[in-house]
């Protein structure tokens, strides 16, 4: 539905985003992960039609969006910023702002505001002003304010950054309820991989303004067999990953790249997961940190130091062994 094509975006000549293609399909639940400064917020601002890419095109339903998008188009997508701001006035006025600018009648605006406030537990805060709210409350109001206008695409920049676990859970449940009621695409930018793993159907990684070819690291949807023991084996492609969990059924496994031990041969150790394969890619991530991708039956990514890459002479084609403990595997 909403697409960026051949987008190069620069701030003061500095390239901050370089994407050949990035699409948000209708009704998708998408997460963009990446470190701070990886270009996530810029990407969301382009998708929100708040900025025009220096080069390239934004397309909606295949048609190019003009440089100055008409309000009717802008109104189909709404962005909630990482640290959202409330406009001057009460929470009620904020929740109704988007509806008012659409020329909706006051009585109808009030009814919508009451409904959305109730859904997000904001009814007691309706008459408060922004300086009377905590950061978490401001974030909740901002999400509710964005949903009140019923966009086709909702863009959330670190939506749970000011919320505790319970509040974040409530927020995601509210979003799920909204998606159940109508087709709504949500694109969440987060540096918290856990958030992305837990909530998104499709996860894309952004590094230095580019889509990283290494899909957020080592993420697998699996069926965990029923059984009493804590140690379970999940089949992923041609290999079986040992994992310690009391969960069963459909889960997502994540193997943190920093927990993978890279060696040239199998070493006697406590690691329950030992896979031999060949290096397929060696990519520098941050200064000093290298992502080594190996085909061990499936593609696995290990994060090692540049020094280790040198010492082990890791290069594409080289034989390698990846090891990690069953307890290192995270289950979502």
């Amino acid at each position: 539905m909403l697409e960026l094509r051949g987008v190069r975006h620069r701030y003061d000549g500095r390239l901050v985003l370089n994407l050949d293609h990035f699409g948000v399909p209708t009704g998708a639940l998408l997460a963009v992960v990446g470190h701070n400064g990886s270009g996530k917020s810029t990407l969301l601002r382009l998708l929100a039609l708040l900025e025009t890419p220096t080069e390239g095109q934004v397309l909606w339903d295949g048609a190019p969006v003009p440089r100055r998008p008409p309000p009717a188009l802008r109104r189909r997508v709404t962005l909630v910023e990482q640290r959202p701001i409330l406009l001057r006035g009460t929470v009620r006025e904020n929740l109704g702002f988007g509806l008012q600018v659409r020329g909706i009648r006051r009585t109808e605006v009030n009814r919508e505001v009451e409904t959305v406030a109730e859904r997000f537990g904001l009814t007691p805060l309706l008459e408060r002003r922004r300086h009377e709210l905590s950061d978490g409350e401001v974030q909740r109001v901002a999400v509710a304010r964005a949903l009140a206008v019923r966009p086709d695409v909702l863009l959330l920049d670190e939506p749970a950054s000011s919320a505790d676990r319970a509040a974040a859970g409530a927020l995601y449940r509210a979003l799920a309820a909204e998606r159940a009621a109508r087709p709504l695409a949500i694109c969440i930018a987060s540096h918290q991989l856990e958030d992305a793993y837990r909530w998104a159907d499709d996860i894309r990684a952004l590094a230095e303004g580019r889509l990283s070819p290494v899909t957020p690291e080592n993420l697998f949807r699996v069926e965990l067999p029923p059984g009493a023991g804590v140690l379970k084996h999940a089949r992923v492609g041609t290999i079986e990953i040992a994992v310690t969990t009391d969960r069963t059924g459909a889960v997502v496994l994540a193997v943190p790249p920093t927990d993978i031990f890279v060696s040239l041969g199998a070493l006697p150790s406590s690691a329950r997961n030992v896979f031999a394969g060949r290096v397929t890619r060696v990519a520098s991530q941050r200064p000093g940190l290298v992502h080594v991708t190996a085909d061990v039956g499936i593609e696995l990514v290990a994060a090692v130091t540049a020094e280790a890459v040198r010492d082990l002479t890791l290069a594409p084609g080289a034989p390698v062994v990846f090891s990690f403990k069953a307890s290192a595997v995270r289950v979502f």
Partner: protein
Amino acid sequence: MDFLAEGFRRALALLLAGDAEVFGIALLTLKVAVVATIVACGIGLPLGYFLATRRFWGRRAALTAVNTALAFPTVVVGLLLYGMLSRRGPLGGLGWLYTWQAIVIGDVLLALPIAAALSAAAVQGVDPRVRRTALTLGAGRWRTAWAVAREARFALAAVITAAFGQVVAEIGAAMIVGGNIRGSTRTLTTAVALYTSQGDFGLALALGFVLIAMALVVNVALQALQGKGGA
């Protein structure tokens, strides 16, 4: 110091007596200042918003030009305008030289850079998230500008005050294009200059007090308009 005390006494007596000439001059000054402030701010505030929020080629040069215009000597503006409005000038056909309209134009030219430069600075001082939030919630251009202006209301009120202060206290252009004609284009500042040069210190001082009182009233009114300043 005796002349000063004497001046104060005369000023007070003139004001209390409700001197017709003093009130006539004050009314004309108020009319010129209000019209010029409305016109200058009506153009300057949107221009400042535009300069602060739009990225376009030559924006920096435009901001520099507006900031430089802040330092325009009023007599130079008066001279240029005199050239334009004089019978052989391009605007001579209007027949506005030595009318209150000519003073308004001069004042607008002087207050416009103030309104534009200071409102650009005021808008630039507003958290950019305010504009983005209004836009992403679907607001059009004017509604977004209004949301930003509400955040910058104190700074924008100061801009209007500064513009009014400029036009009400202006003398150079008013003297040149207005001509300081009694009962027609004599403003408080030109009158003060005239009566001082004639040695009528009391009258000059009385008019000076009226000028200060007018500025005070306008400031109080603007402060009242800003409300209590809640978020």
